[in-house]
C-alpha cells in the first residue's frame, strides 16, 4: 500500500468516525434545534481548541465496528476561557450512546487524566443506558465490575449537562458532579420508563420520573434548568469561571465591574424595619457583591436558603444566606442538604464562605422528623466544622437557636452583626408562651411583660460586648466589611489552599 492509499484510507476513516450515527437521527435533532455531540463540544469549548482522544475506537463486539463510530462517545482535550479542560460528550445517534466496554474505558481514562493533570472535567450526558447484549452474562457484567471505578474525590471541578434522555452511566456522572445543568425536556434517571414498564409493570411519565422540575425542585440533583443546549453549555462555562482548575489552585480573580456596590444604600429600602415582615435576600446579595456576579446554585431547591457563587472585589466567594421570603427563612431538610453540599464544593476548591443570617430557627414538625432533619442539621454542622477555607458571617436580623450556630455563629473567622441583629435561643414570644403558659389574648399585660423580659439581652451590642461577635456594622457597609475581611483572612501560610477534609464527602444523603 503506497502513501496515497494510506492517506486516502486515513481520511475515509476519519470522516466515517466524525459522521457519528445515522443521518436520519442527526437530521431529526437538527430539525428540533437540538445539538449533536460534536456541535455541543464546539459550542462549549474555545474555538479550535478541541483535540479528540479515541476517534477510532469502536464496539468491542465483533461485527459491530461499522455501526459504532467512536463507540458512541466523543472525548478529548480542549480549553474554556483559555484554561485546559477535558470533555466527554455522549453521542446519542450512535447506538443511543449506550455504555459498553470501550466507550467506558475512554471516559474512565478521561476522568482519571483530568484528575491527574488537574483540569476540570465536563460531561455532556445523553445515554440510553448500558448496552445489551454487550454487558449481559457473567463475563459482560463481570468486565464492567472489574474495569470501572465509580468513586470520586473532589480533586478537580466536575460539571455535567443533561441534554436528553440520560439513563445509567450519564446519570451516575451527574450524581457525583459539582454542577449539573439540565435542558428542559431532558430526563435523568436510573433507567428508562420502558424498563420500568417491563420490569415492574409501572407506567411512568418520564417527566415525573426525572424531568427538570423533579430534579431542580424535589431532588436537588440538578442545580439549574435551561431552555437550550447552548444555554446549558454557557452555564458550564460560567460556572467554571468561579473555580480553580483543581483543588491545589486558587480561584481565578476577575475584573470588578464599574458601579459594583454603588447602590448599597438601597439595602435599607429592601430590608423591612418591622421584624415581622419578610423580603427577598437575593436582592440584598446583589447590592453587596460585584455587579452581575451572582451565580445561583440549586435556586429552586430548599428555597428558604440561598446558595450562590459571587465575587467581591473580583474574588470568588460562596454565599449561604437565609431567604425570609420562603418559610420565613427557616432551615428545613432540603436547605440543610443544600448548605452541606455547597460547603463541600467551596471547601474543596478554596472558595471562602460567607454566611448572611436572618433565620428564626429550624422548621419543626412531623414531616421534617420523618426525613431525618436532626441528622441533616448535624451534617451541616460537620461540614462547617471540617471546612478550612475562610468563613465570614454577618447576622442581619434574627438568628435563633441551633440555626444561629449553623449559620456561622461562633464558627467563623470573623463575625459582624448589623445593628438590627437579634440573637437568642428562640423568639421571645415563643419563649414567653412556653415558660409561662399564659394565653396572650386572656392576659395580654402579663404576657407582654414576659415577652419583654425574654427580649432583653438580644441586641448585637450584647453579643459584641462579650466579644462573641467581632463587630457591629451598618448594613450599608457590608460590602466593605466583607472585602476587607476577605483580604485579612486569606490563609497565607498555605497560599490560600485548604486542607480539604471534605474531598470525599458523599454527593447524595
Amino acid at each position, binding site marked *: 500500500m503506497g502513501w496515497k492509499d494510506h492517506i486516502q484510507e486515513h481520511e475515509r476513516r476519519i470522516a466515517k468516525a466524525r459522521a457519528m450515527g445515522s443521518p436520519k437521527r442527526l437530521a431529526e435533532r437538527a430539525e428540533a434545534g437540538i445539538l449533536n455531540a460534536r456541535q455541543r463540544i464546539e459550542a462549549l469549548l474555545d474555538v479550535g481548541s478541541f483535540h479528540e482522544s479515541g476517534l477510532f475506537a469502536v464496539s468491542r463486539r465483533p461485527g459491530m465496528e461499522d455501526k459504532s463510530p467512536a463507540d458512541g462517545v466523543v472525548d478529548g482535550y480542549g480549553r474554556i476561557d483559555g484554561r485546559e479542560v477535558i470533555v466527554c460528550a455522549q453521542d446519542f445517534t450512535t447506538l443511543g450512546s449506550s455504555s459498553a466496554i470501550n466507550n467506558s474505558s475512554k471516559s474512565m481514562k478521561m476522568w482519571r487524566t483530568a484528575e491527574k493533570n488537574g483540569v476540570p472535567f465536563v460531561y455532556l450526558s445523553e445515554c440510553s443506558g448500558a448496552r445489551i447484549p454487550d454487558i449481559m452474562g457473567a463475563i459482560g457484567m463481570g468486565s464492567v465490575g472489574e474495569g470501572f471505578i465509580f468513586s470520586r474525590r473532589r480533586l478537580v471541578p466536575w460539571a455535567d449537562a443533561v441534554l436528553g434522555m440520560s439513563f445509567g452511566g450519564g446519570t451516575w456522572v451527574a450524581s457525583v458532579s459539582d454542577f449539573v445543568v439540565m435542558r428542559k425536556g431532558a430526563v435523568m434517571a436510573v433507567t428508562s420508563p420502558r424498563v420500568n414498564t417491563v420490569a415492574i409493570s409501572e407506567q411512568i411519565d418520564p417527566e415525573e420520573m426525572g424531568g427538570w422540575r423533579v430534579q431542580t425542585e424535589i431532588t436537588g440533583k440538578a442545580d439549574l434548568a435551561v431552555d437550550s443546549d447552548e444555554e446549558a453549555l454557557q452555564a458550564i462555562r460560567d460556572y467554571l469561571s468561579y473555580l480553580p482548575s483543581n483543588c491545589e489552585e486558587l480561584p481565578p480573580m476577575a475584573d470588578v465591574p464599574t458601579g459594583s456596590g454603588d447602590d448599597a444604600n438601597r439595602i435599607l429600602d429592601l430590608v423591612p424595619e418591622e*421584624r*415581622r*415582615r*419578610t423580603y*427577598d435576600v437575593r436582592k440584598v446579595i446583589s447590592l453587596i457583591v460585584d455587579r452581575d456576579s451572582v451565580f445561583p446554585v440549586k435556586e429552586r431547591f430548599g428555597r428558604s436558603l440561598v446558595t450562590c457563587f459571587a465575587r467581591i472585589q473580583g474574588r470568588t466567594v460562596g454565599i449561604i444566606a437565609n431567604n*425570609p*421570603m*420562603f*418559610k*420565613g427563612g*427557616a432551615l428545613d431538610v432540603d436547605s440543610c442538604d443544600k448548605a452541606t453540599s455547597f460547603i463541600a464544593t467551596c471547601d474543596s476548591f478554596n472558595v471562602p464562605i460567607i454566611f448572611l443570617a436572618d433565620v*428564626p*430557627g429550624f*422548621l419543626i*414538625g412531623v*414531616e421534617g422528623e420523618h426525613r431525618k432533619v436532626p441528622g441533616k442539621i448535624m451534617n451541616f454542622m460537620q461540614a462547617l466544622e471540617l471546612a478550612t477555607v475562610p468563613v465570614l458571617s454577618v447576622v442581619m436580623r434574627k438568628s435563633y437557636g441551633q440555626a444561629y450556630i449553623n449559620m456561622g455563629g461562633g464558627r467563623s473567622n470573623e463575625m459582624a452583626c448589623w445593628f438590627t441583629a437579634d440573637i437568642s435561643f428562640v*423568639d421571645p*414570644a*415563643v419563649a414567653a408562651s412556653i415558660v409561662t403558659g399564659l394565653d396572650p389574648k386572656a392576659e395580654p399585660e402579663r404576657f407582654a411583660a414576659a415577652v419583654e423580659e425574654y427580649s432583653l439581652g438580644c441586641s448585637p451590642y450584647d453579643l459584641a460586648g462579650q466579644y462573641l461577635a467581632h463587630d457591629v456594622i451598618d448594613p450599608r457597609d457590608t460590602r466593605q466589611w466583607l472585602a476587607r475581611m476577605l483580604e485579612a483572612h486569606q490563609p497565607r501560610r498555605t497560599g490560600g489552599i485548604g486542607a480539604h477534609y471534605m474531598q470525599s464527602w458523599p454527593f447524595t444523603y
Partner: protein
Amino acid sequence: MAEIEIKSEIAGKVWLIEAEVGQSVEEEDAVIILESMKMEIPVVAPVSGKITEILVEKDEAVAEGQTVARMEG
C-alpha cells in the same frame, strides 16, 4: 394552559389575601400572606399566570402542603 395548585410550604394562619380571582401574577408574586413563626410569610405563585380560585379566608389555619389557591399557568 395547565391548572396549577398553589400550596403553602408551612403551617400557619391566613393573614392577608394579596391576589384576586382573575388577576395575572408573575412567578414568585405573593398570592396569600400567612402568619407563622411570628412573621408574615408570603405564599407565592410557582409560575406566571392567572389566579382562578382562592380557597382560604383570613384567620383560617393552614397546614403545610395545603392547597390555598389555584391558577392557570
